[in-house]
């Protein structure tokens, strides 16, 4: 709680003909002892000004500094006053720059209109009260276990284990089979993994196994599975099921590298798999190569799998989304959510890139095995991405390898047992029949998590990763920029359990996931948040006295951070928490708060807005609750691009729309605010919400708010949520304009003046 706040104005960035000295007097007069210093600097960024602030802190014993000028997004590096709470008030971008008169005309730059003065006064008062209701957060360090658990002892898991150890961490490796090595053990050769990327070579898996076995820092459990993972990053308890019974191990973070299994061959039946002889899968063909039992001299590798696919394999995805979370069990019932099987025909096309390079590799096996051996690769597209093109080129140059785009019409067995592959739309025409000894069909890569929860989270929200249906069962991330971030903090997936990938990518992926695991451990030990609010010391505080065990917070947390006891009282796990505040937004009893972000704080800011009793005279007032991640920067950008918006709106940044509590809207309405706009990220399958579910949850809550308003006789459309991407800055002012016109047409909030 800041109790002595210095308020400083930056003349150079505000301008707009505002009389800042008089504004400083007004603010100082209103807040009295709370703001012993209110000053205007010609240039706040100047070293002189900063020295003077430092002197004020010393002399006046300030514990808070409020800087009024440009957006907090700029000049962040200049204002660090040790041990003092520093906050900013955006009077430039979201004040002077974006101001326009109610009639649409722009303000006289030499003399600020009264409405602009009201606007900036409100913002400064809101800033003062925000700082007053802010406490410096202190962090919540967890136990401090630095050990990494690696699940899976294949190529990826072994790489992760070695790299964790190299970084100075103890590693526990859990492998379900008797031997280490996983699927790489079954490969005769790998597609090239390094420069010059032209020739197949040994995988080198044996070296990886030996390195793990020789490392004293790594404990290996084989024929083992993770039965349960409970606790939180920096303080997990992993229950490992061994042949000899269960064993508990404390770990700080987890790398999930449980790989994949071949897709059910049933999808390959249209190609004659299971009914024709010598129609095999790529996985089976690799085994023949490994054991030296290839007898076929002419082999067709089929990559165009459209014959086995429905016209649109993704069609059912267009159906309305089923509720993402498993329904909560009834009171007293044990949670036993059924695990969905995510395997489908889609795993065939999704494995296209692997199938393509594997076909190139295996075509080489045929030519290697026999003089005059012939391999036909029949594709729709050769998906040989990036640098691996060089391998493709090298294969094209090989005698005996023929490739063509082709649609497979049928495969039939001839009397002599050979197979006839009938193709259309090839590069040499239609009705082409190729006679071969063997047909090799691609092996779809089905991630381990498509079939089994694997990690077996002992979490209130169930044992598996949520959202897997979005990723076809892969333990993948929805983010493009942050490929390791999922909804379960401290568990990082790598290798083919995350996406279909080759050994080179899996190797890199394993190192990356280990990096994230180590970072999560360090963060948990320091008590700070991980992505996206990395380093944030604040965490949700619970005032349990008022908790009614309604379970909203435990159910809505996008990250499953909250468990609960038998009565339903939430049990916080701060190291799992991403600090979005969705729990705070969920709680009808104001139980949850952050030291520097809470219900009272935002509520108080809303109360600082001066609402004219007569809308006709003073104009309406509308609050914009803007997601600080995307909507807030978009508003800044709009202003910088010369856009303007209504002088009647007041923008309040929020951590995420998920943190918006209905109480704020109720407070605003009862205060006579005429409308509330909520600007947040896109939701749906391609959601952009930084906290995954925040904006979507807000939308659901908004429906309830609307109902309540309706009952009270307030038009529900006075509260509206908008999906705003960060680059929609040019559209935003129009969105605000439309909402304001709607409010002006509707007239005042019926509660105004009560």
């Amino acid at each position, binding site marked *: 709680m800041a109790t002595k706040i210095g308020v400083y104005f930056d003349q150079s960035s505000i301008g707009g003909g505002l009389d800042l000295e008089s504004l400083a007097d007004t603010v100082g007069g209103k807040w009295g002892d709370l703001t012993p210093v209110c000053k205007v600097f010609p240039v706040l960024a100047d070293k002189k000004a900063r020295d003077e602030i430092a002197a004020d802190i010393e002399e006046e014993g300030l514990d808070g500094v409020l800087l009024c000028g440009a957006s907090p997004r700029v000049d962040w590096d200049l204002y660090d006053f040790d041990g003092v709470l520093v906050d900013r008030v955006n009077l430039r971008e979201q004040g002077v720059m974006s101001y326009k008169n109610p009639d649409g005309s722009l303000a006289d730059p030499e003399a600020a209109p009264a409405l602009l003065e009201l606007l900036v006064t409100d913002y400064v008062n809101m800033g003062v009260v925000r700082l007053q209701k802010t406490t410096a957060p202190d962090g919540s360090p967890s136990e401090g276990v630095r050990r990494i658990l690696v699940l899976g002892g294949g190529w990826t898991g072994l790489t992760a284990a070695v790299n964790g150890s190299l970084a100075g961490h103890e590693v526990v490796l859990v492998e379900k089979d008797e031997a280490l090595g996983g699927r790489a053990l079954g490969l005769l050769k790998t597609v090239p993994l390094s420069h010059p990327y032209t020739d197949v070579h040994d995988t080198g898996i044996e070296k990886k196994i030996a390195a793990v076995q020789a490392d004293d820092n790594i404990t290996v459990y084989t024929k083992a599975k993770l039965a349960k993972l409970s606790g939180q990053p920096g303080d997990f308890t992993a229950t490992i099921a061994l042949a000899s019974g269960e064993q508990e191990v404390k770990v700080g973070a987890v790398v999930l590298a449980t790989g994949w299994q071949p897709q059910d061959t049933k999808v390959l039946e249209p190609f004659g798999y299971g009914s024709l002889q010598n129609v095999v899968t790529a996985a089976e063909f690799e085994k023949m190569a490994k054991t030296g039992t290839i007898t076929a001299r002419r082999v067709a590798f089929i990559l165009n799998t459209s014959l086995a696919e429905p016209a649109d394999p993704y069609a059912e995805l267009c159906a309305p989304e089923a509720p993402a979370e498993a329904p909560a069990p009834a009171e007293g019932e044990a949670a036993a959510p059924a695990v969905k099987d995510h395997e489908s025909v889609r795993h065939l096309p999704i494995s296209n890139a692997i199938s393509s390079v594997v076909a190139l590799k295996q075509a080489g096996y045929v030519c290697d095995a026999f003089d005059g051996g012939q391999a036909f690769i029949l594709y729709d*597209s050769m998906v040989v991405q990036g640098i691996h093109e060089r391998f493709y080129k090298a294969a094209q140059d090989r005698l005996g390898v023929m490739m063509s785009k082709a649609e497979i019409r049928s495969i039939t067995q001839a009397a002599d047992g050979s197979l006839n592959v009938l193709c259309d739309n090839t590069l040499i025409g239609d009705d082409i029949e190729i006679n071969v000894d063997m047909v090799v069909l691609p092996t779809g890569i089905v991630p381990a998590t498509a079939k089994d929860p694997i990690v077996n989270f002992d979490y209130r929200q169930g044992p598996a990763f949520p959202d897997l249906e979005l990723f076809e069962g892969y333990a993948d991330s929805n983010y493009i920029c942050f490929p390791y971030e999922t909804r379960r903090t401290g568990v990082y997936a790598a290798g083919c359990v995350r996406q279909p990938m080759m050994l080179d990518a899996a190797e890199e992926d394993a190192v990356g996931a280990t990096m994230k695991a180590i970072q999560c451990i360090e963060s948990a030990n320091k008590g700070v948040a991980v992505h996206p609010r990395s380093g944030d010391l604040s965490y949700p505080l619970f005032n349990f006295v008022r908790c009614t065990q309604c379970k909203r917070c435990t159910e809505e947390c996008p990250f499953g951070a909250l468990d609960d006891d038998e009565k339903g009282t939430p049990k916080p796990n701060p190291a799992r928490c991403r600090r979005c505040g969705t729990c705070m937004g969920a709680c009808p009893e104001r139980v949850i708060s952050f030291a520097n972000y809470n219900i009272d704080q935002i509520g108080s800011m809303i109360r600082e807005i001066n609402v004219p009793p007569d809308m006709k005279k003073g104009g309406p007032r509308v609050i914009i609750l803007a997601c600080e991640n995307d909507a807030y920067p978009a508003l800044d*950008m709009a202003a910088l691009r010369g856009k303007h918006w209504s002088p009647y709106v007041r923008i309040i940044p929020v951590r995420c729309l998920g943190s918006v509590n209905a109480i704020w809207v109720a407070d605003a309405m009862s205060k006579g605010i005429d409308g509330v706009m909520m600007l947040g990220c896109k939701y749906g399958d391609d959601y952009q919400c930084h906290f995954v579910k925040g904006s979507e949850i807000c939308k659901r809550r908004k429906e309830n708010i609307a109902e309540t308003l309706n009952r009270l006789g307030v038009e529900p459309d006075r509260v509206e949520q908008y999906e705003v991407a960060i680059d929609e800055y040019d559209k935003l002012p129009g969105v605000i304009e439309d909402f304001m016109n709607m409010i002006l047409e509707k007239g005042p909030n019926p509660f105004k003046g009560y």
Partner: protein
Amino acid sequence: MSNSILVVGGGFSGLTAAIEAAEVGYEVYIVEKTPFLGGRVAQLNKYFPKLCPPSCGLEIQFQRIKKNPRIKFFTQAEVTAVSGDAGNYTVKVHIEPRGTVPSSADLSLLASSLESDVDNEFELGLAKRKPLYMSVPFAFPSRFVLDKAALSRADELKVGKSAFCDMNEAPRDIELNVGSIVVATGWKPYDVTKLSNLGAGAFANCVSNMQLERLASASGPTAGQIKRPSDGKAPKKVAFVQCAGSRDQNHLNYCSYICCMASLKQALYVREQYPDAEVTVYYIDLRTPGRYDKFLRKVKADEKIALVKGKVAGVEEDAATGDVIVEVEDAVKGEKRKHRYDLVVLATGMQPSLAGQKLPFDVPVDEEGFIVGGEEKGIFAAGCAQKPLDVMRTAQSGTSAALKAIQTVRGR
């Protein structure tokens, strides 16, 4: 000995490597040659397959930098010399003057009052800029840059009077002591003028895929309206020519990884803006690996987008109309024909930024300019300095390089 890490390049892989390492507790320096962080992705309108804006992820990265005192970055900076060994490198960095004082003062009025106009490198030749500029959307750092050489005499007088500009700021040379180096120097669009048969650089309405990103971006020269550069008309027929430079031994002897997905994405940009427009994509192979397959099917389902396996033999301009005539051989039908388009987009490949450059450190580089070693020296390539990758793979690569760097400097 030093446990600090140097990251060369402030694009997506460099930012990722730097931030991930710093959040574990290591001191990191980023050296970026342009005036702003963000690199190549800052020029993109949307990412495939989600069609989400790159500035969203960059904003997160910048927030992480703001909150982390262990990250120091230098813009307009280049590494000039490196000496020493793993664990103990001395790095010389040359820093060009920004010409403005450290403050976010809004210089846009002053900037627009200047008379000189120069090519805006960020807009890839599609727009001009002033010699005082902040041309990147959501620019970070959000401070103007003074291009002193481009000022006219009158401009110099104006700028000289501003308290926020510094005409006399001198370049600086600094020395950093680091234990490990991450090279994340990224890529540049292949010089399309080398593809003389494809008309790029010569015909106004034959643009590169990166130029189309700028034309589609809200922050770009047309505020996001895709228009023909020659006359500003809305294109009704658009062709994409895949592998412009890529998969060609005479140009780039590899596949550039992103161009198929990029063109499919851009086909959707066009279709979204112009419901009547027709798009044809001429390709050798459609490379949409993994879950990108779903994106391909979505594009295929659009009846006004044709995907044709075919080789483009040549491109001509109809000087009277500005239309572009594309001669193409349909590989399946086996027929060679000429088609007229309003706009042609060349799916230009990516070339490593280091191609043809002399490196300040001794690491092996392949014939194309990709870094293919250096690990034993504590020097790690990340992202497209190493091989062509998309953004997701780049982030993965940067994260991985961060741990490798940490392993090198740990305990020093």
